[in-house]
């Protein structure tokens, strides 16, 4: 190894100066290529950072708008509160219905209204060793509601 290194340095030492310069320029060119590659990556990173900033700004905007939505929902709910609705209904001449005023007309083959199933029915479900409902649903709210209200079997 040392003999090889000696030969290389000896050869370099004995080269004409132009050829020595060619070696130096070659090394510098290689360094320049490396520098270009890293500079290019710096450029890409900068672009990514700017995009990331925009995404974060959008995220912040989304959060702010969610806030505004909640505030508007609350405002809307206050306008539709039961107190307001009752006052409006009474102003328009409506009166609350008492049981005696309701007339139920049985129209066969219509069955009894299923008024007793509005909340999860856990009470009388036989205990089989398994939870009556899965721990967590992994379907969307709309799907869950449609299945739940239509009393379809849960997945």
């Amino acid at each position, binding site marked *: 190894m040392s003999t090889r290194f000696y030969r290389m340095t000896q050869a370099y030492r004995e080269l004409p*100066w132009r050829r020595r*310069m060619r070696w*130096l320029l070659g*090394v510098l060119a290689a*360094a320049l290529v*490396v*520098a270009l590659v*890293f*500079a290019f*990556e710096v450029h890409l990173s*900068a672009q*990514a*950072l700017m995009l*990331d*900033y925009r995404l*974060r700004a959008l995220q*912040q905007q989304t*959060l702010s708008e969610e*806030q505004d939505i*909640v*505030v508007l*929902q*609350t*405002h*809307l*709910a*206050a306008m*539709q*509160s*039961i*107190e307001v609705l009752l006052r409006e209904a009474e102003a328009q001449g409506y009166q609350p219905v*008492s*049981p*005696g005023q*309701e007339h*139920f007309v*049985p129209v*066969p083959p*219509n*069955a*009894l*209204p299923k008024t007793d199933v509005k*909340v*999860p*029915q856990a*009470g*009388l*479900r036989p*205990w089989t060793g398994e*939870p*009556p*409902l899965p721990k*967590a*649903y*992994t379907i*969307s*709210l709309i799907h*869950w*509601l449609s299945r*739940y209200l239509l009393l379809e079997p849960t997945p």
Partner: protein
Amino acid sequence: MSTPTVPVPSDAPRPETALWRYAIAAGAVLALGLVVVARLVLLQTGAERNWLAREVREGYAESVPLPRGLIYDRDGHLLAGDRPAYEVDVRLAAVPLEALPQIARDLAAVLGLDEGALVQALVNNKNKGVAAVLVSNRVSDQQKAMLEARARAWKVAGPEGKPVPLRGALTFVRRLVRYYPEGDLAANVLGFVAVGSGDGYGGVEQYYNKLLKGGVAWVHYPYAPWHQDDEQQQPAPQPVALYLTIDRPLQRAAEEEAWRAVQHTKAESATIIVADPYSGALLAVGQYPRPNLNDYRAIQEHLKKWDALDFAVERSYEPGSVFKVVTMAAAVDAGKVTPQTVFHDVGTFQVPGRTVWNWNRGAWGDQSMIGCLQHSLNTCLAWVAVDRLGKQPFYDYLQAFGFGRPTGVDLGGELPGYYRAPGTKYWSHSDWASQAFGQAIDVTPMQMIAAASAIANGGYLVTPHVLQYEVVDDRAYPYHPDPPPQVISAQASRTMRQMLTESLKGESSAALVDGYSVAGKTGTAEIAVQGAGYITSATNASFVGWFPAEKPQYVIYVWLERPKTSIWASVVAAPVFANMVQRVAAIEHVPPDRIREQLSAAEAQQP
């Protein structure tokens, strides 16, 4: 003539000094290039992040306050939301002393504060060198606009004695605070949120505080590229929405009936619970009085007076005769009595240390178990518990029905109730006999509704609850109770339904409703006063029942505290139950029994 210069051949070796100069120059250029490359490499690999200033390394962050989770009723009506409010500070450092009275005057006028106290506070803090003082943290949009308008007119003496506008005296910080669009509707169920800490107190707000609490989301803006990935791994907390089993119209009806009951009977308070006996879902927990949740002072005054927000879980009392349904259900389930079992009432029942009397101190002769419930005979129920059921089974049933421990309802501050059991200090036979008819035992209305549900639904002790499902990130997670234990058999439950229906009919109770079969029991409990024993002039009047009697859909509990027009539950509480049945039937469109039977028959005839 000089000798011409001979050109040196190009391949001739140069002098040694020239070679060294080239070598040094080339080396310098090479080193510079390597430094540039090394710098770029270090920048990209992050190896020099520790050399940079902290703010350069981490960038900066902006906070966004997250709204507290929303609460809806079972049909999606918003019960608890958020609205903006402002924190207003006086920047004392920017205000001369002579301007403080004017500022205090305007602040007091707009915010409804005491002007004198405010001036004093501002001046004292100014003299102490305090930079800014918080004046209020619940300033509305309108109040903010009014304050800003007034602040524009504030002037102070300028350098030449001329008045110049005073700027920057007030600072406003926007935040979200809890707002209840329905005012006091279901105030006891919902609870409230403390302004400072943002934590919920009482009801759903307390029980689900961790889920609901919004907090603050931070949006980070890193300067260094290597921080991008780290920060993106932390998503903002997802808002949660709770959908309750509470039904807005039913809740309103229960609250109206509670208010009406207090007006008619001059009771101190009224509590009415409506629940689904099969699932334990609470459809309404009406109460009067209750505070308007948007009025913080009203909440404080309410708590100061009552020391409880939700009477159904935060207060316990001796229930009196409504508890007889539990004793009777236990004895029926154990096979120790049947509806036809006869008790010969001589007007008293002796246990060591106590003689039990009936409510009217009378003797009722031979009575079936239905008669015992119908006439609410203390002697009979003491006999059932002591002579027929036995000590250990009686207390086993109390334990099974969930007395003496919280029901597990998802409302904050639930009390466990209390009763002395054998083996505990001071227990006596007197306790045993008294507990059989609802004395010497403290229960919450929620425990009674759970026990009544079990008696009505076939024997299953369901957990009362208000959560129907929670929604996180558009996914619904339904309330998931543990399977309910069966505390009495389906047969015993059926027998109890029949007995309680018959006993109500037998006494022509004011709880009966035209067209609807109801089952239930009144309870008049004298109130024990420390040092004076039980006083007959003050009672707790209760009623527990359900309808339709044979296929219970709604179980209802009524508690009137210290009614004045009559001390008897049959006079004051039973009509409230009947009114409530009518209201529930109308709101929920429950057909009368006659129609139900026709529809059932038609349904049965279908192939």
